[in-house]
């Protein structure tokens, strides 16, 4: 056996020489999947290149309606997004069940999400979008200002109407990640942090994943590494075109709760919500810089100014709050749908990549991936997420 550079011999990993199922990526999907499989009594471990809860950050929005930013950026993929809308709806609802499974309060709230409009053109766009979403089975409504005054009086005078999607909500990712980790541990999931998989090979005997500390032999491998799944899959000759979208996030100090919905904009990037701590989390599509591999992505001043200027413009009451921290998280995009299930050409290789709203889709994606690994029929239609849909390398 040889190491990552192809010359030096590779030693067995001191803590994990061999495992039945190796999950690469310990973010929301990998952590949940490790818990599900461990609970079923399987021999499973998850490795992450960084830290607990995933190396890249998340913000805890539960997205269901089609995000205007996606529609603007990827008009050619709208049909794909439409194909996975049902999964979004199920995934957001599943968070409530999953919270029960975890036995911890993760502040899962499904109060609905508002996508606001500042002018008639935006409102017309929302009306058209809502019509299509209703056809696809979502519970949506377009509200005028008078209706908004009743359910969202915190919206400023710039807002003339909004689309309300009843399935949307939020979850506190800090609490959820902590609970998921504890739950997985209870069921015996092994977890290794700061273990970047440098080389992944497969032969008849199974898989070998090499980290800086040694080689892990695995019977099966699940790629749950978000945007980094593409490079890992390529090592096995499988093509999965994941895309990294580094995004800007802001968080304020705490105040009395007053923003009850997940708030978005019909024409500009913003996602805004308030956590149980009273802190407003403001983000939603302003870009960050990816930075060097293995380094945290870097925030941009232009994103910070634009994002916060927009936030106070639509919710003026936020104006006196102070921002205490910003960070960048990496969203993983594919083609509007996730990638879930067995790889077409490599036996024992599975994917668990949730697609554009990773945190929303995370627990459900993990559950569906677990079904595929166990050879059960998944409880949802995941034909849109078939790993076989991409051209082979």
């Amino acid at each position, binding site marked *: 056996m040889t190491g990552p550079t192809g010359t030096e011999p590779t030693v067995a990993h001191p803590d994990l020489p061999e495992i039945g199922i190796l999950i690469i990526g310990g973010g929301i999907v990998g952590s949940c999947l490790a818990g599900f499989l461990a609970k079923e009594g399987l021999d499973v471990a998850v490795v992450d290149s960084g830290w607990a809860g995933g190396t890249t950050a998340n913000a805890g929005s539960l997205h269901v309606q089609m995000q205007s930013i996606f529609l603007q950026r990827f008009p050619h993929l709208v049909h794909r997004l439409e194909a996975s809308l049902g999964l979004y709806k199920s995934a957001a609802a599943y968070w409530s069940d999953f919270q029960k499974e975890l036995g911890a309060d993760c502040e899962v709230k499904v109060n609905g999400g508002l996508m606001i409009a500042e002018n008639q053109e935006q409102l017309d766009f929302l009306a058209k979008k809502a019509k299509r979403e209703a056809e696809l089975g979502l519970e949506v409504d377009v509200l005028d200002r008078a209706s908004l005054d009743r359910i969202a009086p915190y919206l400023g005078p710039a807002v003339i109407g909004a689309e309300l999607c009843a399935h949307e909500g939020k979850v506190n990712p800090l609490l959820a990640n902590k609970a998921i980790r504890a739950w997985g541990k209870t069921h015996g999931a092994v977890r290794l942090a700061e273990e970047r998989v440098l080389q992944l090979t497969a032969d008849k005997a199974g898989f070998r994943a090499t980290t800086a500390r040694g080689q892990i032999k695995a019977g099966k491998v699940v790629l749950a590494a978000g945007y980094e799944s593409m490079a890992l899959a390529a090592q096995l000759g499988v093509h999965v075109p994941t895309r990294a979208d580094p995004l800007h996030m802001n968080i304020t100090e*705490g105040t*009395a709760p007053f923003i009850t919905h997940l708030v978005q904009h019909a024409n500009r990037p913003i996602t805004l919500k308030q956590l149980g701590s009273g802190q407003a989390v403001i983000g939603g599509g302003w870009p960050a810089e990816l930075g060097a591999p293995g380094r945290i992505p870097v925030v941009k001043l*232009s994103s*910070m100014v634009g994002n916060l*200027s927009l936030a106070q413009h639509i919710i*003026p009451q936020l104006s*006196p709050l102070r921002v*205490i921290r910003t960070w960048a998280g990496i969203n993983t995009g594919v083609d509007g749908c996730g990638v879930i299930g067995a790889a077409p050409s490599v036996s024992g290789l599975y994917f668990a990549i949730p697609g554009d709203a990773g945190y929303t889709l995370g627990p459900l994606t993990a559950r569906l991936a677990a079904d595929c690994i166990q050879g059960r029929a998944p409880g949802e239609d995941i034909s849109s997420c078939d790993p076989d849909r991409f051209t082979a390398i």
Partner: protein
Amino acid sequence: MSDRVPFTFDGVSLEGRYGESLAAALMGAGYTDFRQTRTGHARSIFCGMGVCQDCLVNVDGKPNQRACMTKLEKSVSVESEIFGRPLPAVAEGQPFKLIDDVPEESPEVLVIGAGPGGLSAAIAARRSGARVVVADERPAPGGQYFKQVLVDGRDVAPPDRQHLEGRRLIETALKLGVEIRNNMDVWGAFGPNDLVATEAGFIRRFSPQRLVVATGAYERGVPVPGWTLPGVMTTGAAQTLWRSYRRLPGARILIAGNGPLNMQVASELKDGGAEIAGVVELAEMPLLKSISALSRMAAAAPRLVRDGLRYRSRLSDVPIVYGSAITRIAPSENGLTVQVSSYPDAGKTGTRTFEVDTVCLGYGFQPSNEILRALGCEHVFDSQRGQFVAVLDDKCRTSVENVYSLGDCTGLGGARVALSNGRIAGWAVAEDLGHAPPPSNELDQERRNLSRHQRFQAALWELYAAPRPKIDLASPDTIVCRCEEVTVSQIQDVLKSENPSIGDLKRATRAGMGSCQGRYCGPILSELVAASKGQPPDDSVRFAPRMPVKPVCIADIARIAKP
């Protein structure tokens, strides 16, 4: 103009001095409880310099204003801040704007910090012909060492020699045409020529050709039972109340910690009329072995040694408890009951108890290196002083091109070292910009000055050498993260169970997630995590640098018209 300003606090009519901080005015009126935390505990002024976020009050409906940084200039309605108070109604926001709408200034040199080092660098660069802007968060220049008397009145004691030396430095800078911008909070450093600030509520960008970071230091947090109680503040906070606003922090005061500042402040407060119950010093009493250090100090800076002896003689009737630390502060009927024991060996001498109304804690300083870290400037850990120090060349250039730094933000050296390095940095900046270099004899002379001051500092540290408490003065229920009220036992539970990274510790406990952005708990947690991993502290055990480096109001980011 009248030197008195009326204001109200929680509906009570009060009067303060024009130009003093709200914190000083409230202390002068006998109020110590400024705000209530999430758990309903009272907090008061702690750092006194805009760092700790513990003195937050509501001013004319505007929440979370730092009382120590808000100047009393007009009649205002002040309310104690209560965590979770509903935000005021705001009828309309600012129009939506983008970064290109933000006015940008391009001085040749931007100096951040108008303390001794920043002013000295600005003067040297300006003398060499550079266009220099100095940005400072405080209402007046001078920094901590040269903070000026900012109030007038018959009952206001006149400035002393240290004030006057600072005033001359400020006047020199202004006379030369250095543009000093106060109330300018530089909260973001996105690149050496991409800085962002708010100035009196308006956002500003700077794209200087060269950046000089001289952001000073803040006092190290040493958790001890009761250190979050009102009436407990840093020694520096007490000094600011007295030196800038001529307010005493209390009537009967115990000062504890490590280093010469405690003795100076004890002496100043005593001169101001306070009763000093005692000074508790971690270091052992200077004995024969200290003579070598003292004589080296006397040779290097005789005036500073004279000052030190003067402070000490002013305290001749004050108990000085050496080799000891405060081990507990508890509320009592008339103020605070304070326990003092020998440290590190608690059993060595008996425990003493002091009844006071005010406790000052001064355990030395941590460099304010947030901007340097944000820019990626290289740092190394100095285990003796327990802090990260910037890697600099002999002209104060950092590892990042076009970024210079000096003074206490690069690792502690004191005001004299900052003044000297300021000149060297200012000359280097100007020369690197193509202006005339300084006469070589002046540079040589300055290097000799610098090494003399460094010898003085080294001897001073020897004199005050002492074991450095981390959380060993704390009990399991003592708060480590003041903002999020995270206790020692919560931290230790995570450390014990999971071999966590600093990020894990933060996410698991919320330590470091509050308004002071981890400034007080961060250095402690870094050392604890490093120890649990069995490695020396390096960048991997520090909180990742995050913008903004100080909390910034959303309205101020969005308000981009010229004032």
